């Protein structure tokens, strides 16, 4: 077990060339937001139509966003519930990613909703039969859990800040209380995540006549849950290495390499269930139909699951930063592709005369949301104690 390295603010120069690019992308998104919400509505901003009511704002910003934020609960489960102290170093970045991820899922959803001012309605208008209601309510609860889990990080930062004595006092009082009850929230976070990650997969099952048979299975929710387990650690690996590259610090291979062993297990499990499901349902007959769906499924399974699985089998690859990064990236992209396939490519409305191609505004908002997320992430790790890395501590000392 490695010795504990306490998380510290990164404390690097915030405005770099990359950050400016992110700001520009975020600003473009803000302009489109004004355009969409105040002037043209969904009709002008999107290419959605009566046959394709869901576009990339749902399939990427929301569904994929939820999947990629799975790093938060998988890491929390590993580090806090199973007490693998070794992985504490990555728990906070993963938590931050999850928190921001879910927050931006909410923001992305606001863009897509026809009446965004009613987004709170599910809280009062319960509809227990609705799969989407379950997803929605769990996401709302989990978002609150995430904020509570993040609170100690904020408190730690401000408890010694002499500029705001009142806040510091409050933080000092709050921290031990949070420490005592935090385990409840950690467990709740995992339960809520399991629930909504799986339910998300149940969404399209209600439309079997429109949902391509390659993906339409009653265990779609189990597959979504397993793929969330699968993508959690690769997302952490990807993000940790990317952060390290950004801040020019050494990737912590002694944490990430063993982490990838879990990924190997979950990827194998997912692959096995997915293939079994395909064999039982006989849906492999569609693989050769030559449609865009068959290609999308093949690419998703081959490059998103099978290739990284076989890559991770090799200890050499698991221990080589660059190759590990590639394997993690493949899994992340595979899950992205899976979500897009389920919610967009695999959705075949029977009366569609034109297919849906996202408008420039939709693409810009999706990119803008990602950019804003990275911007906020960078801002938070710069000013709050999120990342623990020997290099950073050494530097500070």
């Amino acid at each position, binding site marked *: 077990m490695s010795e504990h390295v306490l998380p510290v603010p990164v404390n690097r120069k915030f405005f770099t060339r990359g950050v400016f690019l992110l700001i520009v992308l975020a600003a473009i998104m803000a302009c489109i937001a004004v355009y969409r919400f105040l002037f043209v509505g969904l009709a002008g901003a999107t290419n959605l139509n009566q046959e394709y009511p869901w576009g990339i704002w749902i399939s990427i910003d929301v569904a994929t966003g939820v999947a990629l934020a799975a790093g938060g609960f998988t890491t929390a489960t590993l580090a806090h519930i199973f007490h693998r102290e070794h992985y504490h170093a990555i728990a906070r970045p993963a938590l931050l990613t999850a928190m921001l991820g879910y927050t931006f899922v909410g923001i992305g959803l606001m863009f897509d909703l026809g009446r965004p001012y009613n987004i709170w309605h599910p809280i009062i208008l319960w509809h227990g039969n609705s799969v989407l209601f379950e997803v929605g309510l769990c996401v709302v609860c989990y978002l609150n859990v995430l904020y509570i889990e993040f609170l100690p990080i904020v408190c730690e930062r401000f408890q010694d800040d002499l500029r705001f004595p009142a806040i510091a006092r409050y933080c000092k009082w709050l921290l031990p209380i949070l420490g005592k009850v935090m385990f409840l929230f950690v467990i709740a976070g995992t339960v809520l995540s399991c629930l909504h990650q799986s339910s998300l997969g149940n969404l399209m099952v209600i439309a079997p006549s429109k949902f391509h048979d390659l993906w339409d299975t*009653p*265990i779609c929710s189990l597959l979504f849950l397993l793929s969330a387990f699968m993508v959690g650690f690769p997302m952490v690996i990807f993000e940790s290495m990317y952060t390290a590259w950004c801040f020019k610090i050494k990737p912590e291979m002694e944490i990430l390499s063993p982490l990838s062993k879990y990924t190997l297990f979950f990827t194998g499990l997912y692959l096995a269930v997915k293939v079994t*499901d395909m064999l039982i349902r006989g849906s492999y007959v569609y693989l050769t139909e030559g449609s865009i769906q068959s290609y999308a499924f093949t690419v998703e399974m081959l490059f998103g699951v099978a290739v990284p699985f076989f890559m991770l089998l090799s200890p050499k690859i698991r221990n080589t930063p660059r190759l590990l990064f590639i394997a993690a990236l493949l899994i992340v992209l595979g899950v992205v592709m899976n979500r897009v396939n389920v919610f967009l490519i695999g959705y075949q409305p029977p009366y569609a005369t034109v297919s849906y191609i996202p408008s420039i505004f939709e693409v810009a908002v999706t990119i803008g949301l990602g950019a804003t997320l990275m911007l906020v992430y960078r801002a938070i790790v710069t000013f709050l104690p999120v990342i623990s890395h020997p290099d950073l501590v050494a530097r500070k000392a």
Partner: protein
Amino acid sequence: MNDRLKRRKTRLFAVIAVTAVMVCSSLTWRQAHLQAQVPDQTDASHPLSDCGRCHTCANPRPGNLCLPVCSRMQVRTAEFKQQQGPDFVLLDIIRSEDEGVDRFGPVPFDHSGHADFAAISGGCELCHHYTPERQAHPSCRTCHPPELQRDDIQKPSLKGAYHRQCMGCHREWSHNTRCDACHIQKIGEEPGVITAEDALGHMTPPIPEPETEIYEPRSEPTIGTKVIFRHAEHIHRFEFKCAECHRGDNCARCHEAGKKHVQKIRTMGEHHQDCSNCHAKDVAEGGNCARCHWSEGQPSPLPFDHTATGWPLSRFHKDKSCRGCHKKIPYTALDHDCGSCHTDWEPDTFDHAVTRQILDENHSEFDCEDCHEDGAFDKPPTCTECHDEDEGIAFPAMRPGPVVKP
């Protein structure tokens, strides 16, 4: 120690996971299988299972079957005669259900006009499809109530029955479902007294009549590649009415003349049916095919010439209508004896002036045979009974009286 624990936990975890996956898949497929067997909830609706659908009393027996008036879709016990019914009917029973608003107004219905053409397609019973015994002509309302929401949903209401009946044919040839094609649409004011004239104003525009039709039979032609049919000749000269030839015909054939209409494939017999009603001899084996068929490059068959029948029409008959002499269809050869047609021509009462030859006093008292030898009225008279031919007294140089100028 730590390692052992870790290994054990991993193993436990793996076992649980794999078990779960297996249980899950097997159960899912069991469930999918269960779901495939949807309970069949059909058919409590067989008519034999429900006597009350037809019989109105609990114990129907012979002699008292308790059958309602409209027990069946189609019953026909009476023969209809054309022109039996009224000339004009005003259909004004159904009022629009909207409170006080009658959107479309009543329909003036030209019954005689429809009866004339009924024979073309369906006959009277196309509309009068239900005439049970002792009820020669029940009104439509007997079975089709005017209410939209009714107890018996088996049959359409009066509104539905009318429109299905009318639009079934009308839309076929007019491709028009305009309300004001039949209804007198009320626009603001009361239309006043509605008469047959209002119905006539709604009639279909005149149908263009084909002059001569030339067909090119699709089947292997054995007797010429072309067929001629002089349509105008048949209606104007032979005076056929539409319904006499067109029976069970496609409306569009006339109403959309010129437009290619699809006809079902017909046999030789069916093909010649329309013609063979009259031209039975020509159509029959060894008949005169050249009457209609001819080959490319040769002159087409000529129009009908009465001379060819052995009776060149004289000035008296050439302007007569065919039916003036030929009372029956198909037209057949008539006796050359004038009396066979002119039954009212008796020697005592006959006014010779109808032949344009007035008999003067000297001739008026003769018997017919005195001039017309052997009663051959179609030949010039002979004067030799009284006059000497050598004196130059002969018909038509000398006449037995003045001639009527035509």
